[in-house]
């Protein structure tokens, strides 16, 4: 091997590529994230199965619980459809979170992330682009499900602002879950495995919760888990906000709620912050490592 002079041939070849100030790096991160959010959302227009999974499945859950099981579930002083719909929002976003894991695992498997890593983009935009796209999708689904809910008799009395706040809380929770699922997707690196890992985690969270039935109807040992796990907390916060303070007070009086709406909202925010604080760094570390 010959040793040549240490001239730097083309260090100046692309001046715009020089390391940039932090401010413009943030702007680039935003641009890269936006480009990848768009890319990920375009997949929904190209793969009809994704749309089916996203919209049809929650509608089926609404119909199932509203018309099949709903008749046997009695909630004191509240129509079951009113109790049900906030739970449906929780169920949608928990099930939907698997798509973050599946999407990232597919990208890892296809090799497109290798291409992204070789580009002068801000690398972490790959994760932000995925969780961001899932946030946008969840927003769309929540809006559609509100309309579906009204169509099947959902009549929330909390007022527009409280309903919007409830939706935002559910969406923030969904965003936090996305980061847990991002870690899962990066670790398993194929779509089937991502689903296999995610579903057993999410299924008990969804059903052993207050989403479809009151926690105080469950056996005592299960209540210990169901009353305090995050899906129950977030669903009851959304329920209290959407149905209004009078209904919430009734629910608390009959033991369906174990705290006030405010209590649930505060607990929800704590869960969301805690999940993000733990799983964003873990996912980022896994991404940098793999």
């Amino acid at each position, binding site marked *: 091997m010959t040793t040549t002079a240490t001239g730097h*041939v083309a260090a100046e070849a*692309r001046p715009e590529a020089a390391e940039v100030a932090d401010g413009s790096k943030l702007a680039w991160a935003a*641009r890269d994230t936006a*480009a990848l959010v768009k890319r990920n959302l375009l997949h929904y227009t190209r793969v009809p199965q994704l749309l089916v999974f996203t919209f049809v499945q929650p509608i089926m859950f609404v119909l199932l619980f509203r018309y099949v099981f709903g008749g046997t579930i009695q909630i004191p002083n509240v129509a079951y459809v009113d109790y049900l719909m906030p739970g449906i929002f929780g169920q949608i976003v928990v099930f939907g979170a698997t798509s973050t894991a599946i999407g990232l695992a597919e990208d890892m498997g296809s090799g497109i992330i290798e291409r992204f890593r*070789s580009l*002068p983009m801000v690398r972490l*935009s790959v994760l932000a682009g995925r969780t961001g796209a899932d946030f946008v999708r969840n927003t769309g689904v929540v809006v559609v499900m509100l309309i579906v809910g009204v169509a099947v008799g959902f009549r929330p009395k909390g007022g527009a602002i409280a309903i919007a706040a409830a939706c935002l809380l559910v969406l923030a929770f969904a965003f936090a879950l996305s980061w847990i699922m991002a870690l899962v997707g990066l670790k398993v690196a194929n779509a089937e495995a991502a689903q296999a890992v995610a579903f057993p985690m999410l299924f008990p969270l969804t059903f052993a919760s207050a989403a479809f039935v009151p926690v105080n109807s469950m056996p005592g040992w299960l209540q210990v888990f169901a009353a305090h796990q995050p899906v129950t907390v977030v669903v009851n916060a959304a329920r209290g906000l959407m149905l209004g303070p009078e209904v919430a007070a009734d629910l608390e009086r009959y033991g369906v709620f174990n705290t006030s709406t405010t209590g649930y909202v505060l607990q929800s925010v704590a869960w969301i912050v805690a999940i993000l604080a733990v799983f964003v760094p873990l996912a980022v570390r896994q991404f940098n490592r793999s």
Partner: protein
Amino acid sequence: MSGSTAPAIELAGVTKRFGDVQALAGVDLQVEPGTVYGLLGPNGAGKTTAVRVLTTIIRPDAGRAEVLGLDVTTHPERVRASIGLAGQYAAVDEQLTGRENLRLVGQLCHQPRAEVVRRADELLERFSLTDAGDRPLKTFSGGMRRRLDLAASLVHRPPVLFLVEPTTGLDPRSRQDLWDLIRELVADGTTLLLTTQYLEEADQLADRIAVIDHGAVIADGTAAELKAQMGATVLEVAFADVATAHSALETVAGVAPGAEVDGIAVRAPVDDGARRAMDVLRALDGAGIDVAGLTIREPSLDDVFLKLTGRRAEEDLDPDAPAVADPRPTADVAAQGGSR
């Protein structure tokens, strides 16, 4: 680019280990600016790991890796702005159209919006994909996909290009088309490092070739120099069975030095194929050994390997591996197949 003598790409003593697998065991190589360098070796030899180090996808355990004089570990962002990566496993998005793929790469390279649009159209035209540009990639043929993949690596006009097995799995016609495109690129002054399992491909495209095995360069030189080591042609005599081949070895080697047994065949590098073939047949006839078949051909990667390592390259060669074979960069997968 200046006419400096500094290499455009340099690896010096680079090592990389995935678990139990020593993917790179001290690789040294230098690529002069504006030239094509072929990295030749079977699957698992370390070719792709070397490219992944140079493209900043993974960090080397030790050694120095530089692109255009920039260390890949200390200036990864500047390196990325100067390189393009395409080939077997740097994928494009199946669900997006050709145009959307190219625009996405343009955006991620931080080009101005007008340039993003213009450059995508320009590349589609240059790679004869204009008509297909608005169709999702999943409708593309293998050859079209590789062309788009190559186009995607050129969006930001990188002065240094890495191609990983650019034509593996393509039919001969598409392979020839892609070779023509690659030659055009090189004529523009791009420095190219390409990995391949095919000696013919390296011979067609590369100015210099390094043969890599078990994570180290075991030979390097021009295609002519490597072939000179091999002899201009390879003479291969097949026999009824392995035992016969072994018993015929001495006779063949007497006429064609360097002969070796390979399965039921004996093969030898020779300078003058036709004449030597007659000599060999005459000698075998004289020794009373029946010949089942006779071939005279250009040396292949397999021959280079047999010559250099004493074993066949095909032992772990898998040309039919799926186009996106296991690039998954998770630690556990990388441990098994870090250099697919």
